[in-house]
């Protein structure tokens, strides 16, 4: 099972990759300044873990793009963010998306997270 991590923080990328690999997943991270869609096409992930607040391109616009293109829209997405609250996530996310036709992401993890919660969520999403 392949997981693509999109996050601008190198430390968080390293952490997520190490932790997920330790749980038996194959991971690939998109570095800064790399277009995410190119990576998805090349890597064909089973799950995408996506950060929201990034300097080059916000996670929101990446998410909109993924959901608007048929070749990506079937890939489950887990949002990982310190900006959005765990409670009321849907409302806040809806405000940011500002588009009723776009469906909600399959998972959400609030930073900081319990590693076990992350692993469990990823496990569920990849069943």
């Amino acid at each position, binding site marked *: 099972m392949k997981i693509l991590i999109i996050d601008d923080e*190198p430390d968080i990328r390293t*952490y997520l990759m190490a932790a997920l690999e330790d749980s038996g997943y194959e991971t690939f991270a998109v570095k800064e300044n790399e277009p995410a869609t190119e990576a998805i096409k090349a890597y064909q992930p089973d799950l995408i873990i996506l950060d929201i607040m990034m300097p080059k391109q916000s996670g929101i616009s990446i998410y909109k793009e993924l959901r608007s293109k048929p070749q990506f829209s079937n890939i489950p997405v887990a949002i990982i963010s310190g900006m959005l609250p765990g409670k009321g996530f849907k409302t806040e996310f809806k405000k940011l998306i500002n588009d009723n036709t776009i469906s909600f992401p399959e998972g959400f993890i609030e930073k900081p997270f319990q590693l076990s919660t992350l692993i469990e969520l990823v496990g569920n999403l990849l069943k």
Partner: protein
Amino acid sequence: MNIPPYLEKWMGKNLFSVVPMAIAVINPEYDLVYANKAFELLFGEWENRKCYKVYKHRDSVCRNCKGSETFKDGISRVNKEVGYNKNGRLTSYTNHTIPVVDDNGDIPFLIEMATDVTETEQIKKEHQLLFDQVPCSIFILDRNFRIVKTNKKIRNTFGDTIGMHCYKVLKGLEEKCVECTAMQTFTDGQMHTGHHLWQSGTGQPGTEEQINSHVTTVPIRMEDGDVDLVMEMAVDITQTIKLEDELKVAYTFMESMIEASLDGVIAMDANDSVMIFNHAAKKIFQVSDNKKITRKEIKSMLPEEFLAQISAGQGHVYFPETEVYSINSEKIPVRLIGLRISVEDKSMGTAITIQDLREIKQLENEKLEAERLAAVGQTVAGLAHGIKNLITGLEGGMYMLNTGMKKSRLDRIQEGMEMLDRNIVRVATFVKAFLSFSKGREIKVNLSDPVRIAKEVVMLYSQRARELGIKLINEESGSISPALMDSEGIHECLTNLVGNAIDACNMSEAGKGQHVVVRTIEKDNVIIYEVVDDGCGMDYELKQKVFTNFFTTKGLGGTGLGLLMTKKIIHEHGGKIDLESESGKGTTFRILLSRSRLPKKS
């Protein structure tokens, strides 16, 4: 008395020719046989002419000839005649016809004595015309208050009223008015005036109209001095009264508006006497309600320059933010508008409105405080976000360290240590920046050159820009005079904005983002700084976040406090900051500092 013979002789001989009355002698054939000097002056040549030819330019005897009657009956007559004078003009004259009786009792001659009354007649006619046509009502009353004579205006309004009682005609009353102006004149023979309400169209419903009349009664004296008649002249003042009433209403309305106004209103007349000093003005200047304000006191209250500009008549004089002194010499922040009122270049006085800014100032301070608190709130929220990332980083480091040790993987241990180090440094940077922000810095105002601050910031970044291949340009336009501002604070703002602009250029795709322009301009007393870059720009979400959140796009490099700090400093200068940005095209940040709102010297 004995008449001396020489006088009798003179009168017989000369009187005829020197008497200032035209005298002629006519025989029964109507020939003018003799006439005096005055006759010749009035009627011209007479010798060998018939009287009707001379008097009336006729060729035969006049009908109703009075002379022929006197020849027959020997009775003297007086007649009013109209004939022609020597210049051929129609002339009115009074003619006395007297028979000359001879010793036999016959009448061989008549003497005719004519007085020219043309002028008198003319005056009479003019008088009648005046009486009739003058655009006011005139009538004459007798002692029983019966109307004897009316002019046209009275006839047009009330119809034929001769012989009727004035009170019946004018007011529809059955007896004399209680306050009768004519009565007063009948009583004392003096002129009197009064105000009467007349009712035209009395008796016919729907035609009634009230006429407010200002009447004057004058006595018409008989020869014995008694007043038998009174002339009453009336002017219709209905319109005047209506206008007066309207004016009174308008004035009362305006007066209550001024009195109720929340702004102070002061008005002075052309002699600088204080006419209006309304309730709000009294409140602002702490003047008790019944005190009269003098020009001198006004001078001590308002700024000299303001009054000078009004007197110079430079249209509206507007002082958006200034100070006045109350009567107790307390300084009060106000907005002043003054105007010299003139009508066709003639000064009518001065009007001044005063807006009390104390409450607004208070609200402004409260708003600034609220904004500061909101900023602190945002900072705390943003800080939480930052800390969440830091904790995640720290946890990541711990995870790498732990799993590295368990699995005896040195690379993981190494990586974990580095992650811990990095994130601990970040925590320290964060906390420092946060403390500096929340503590704030004391604002230090001094007279500073706005252009120089921009120049210094550009110098500061010039090397870094050069290294990154970015052109950093300082642009000034026109001269900008020094302003009271916290130069260090503004320096910090521009440092933040220029730093951001350079970062934005650095983050943009290759070949793009090569220019940063710092522009200092002044327009309408507003000092404007613009920091323009053609770097990566911002999309909609980012633009919404830049000021409102503790926000950074720079990962480890930023604290997310720069723009918040900038906004705070600009607010402390009473200024505004806004931005225009388009993703991929660049960003312009604009700081607007209105001179009138800059802080006062500390």
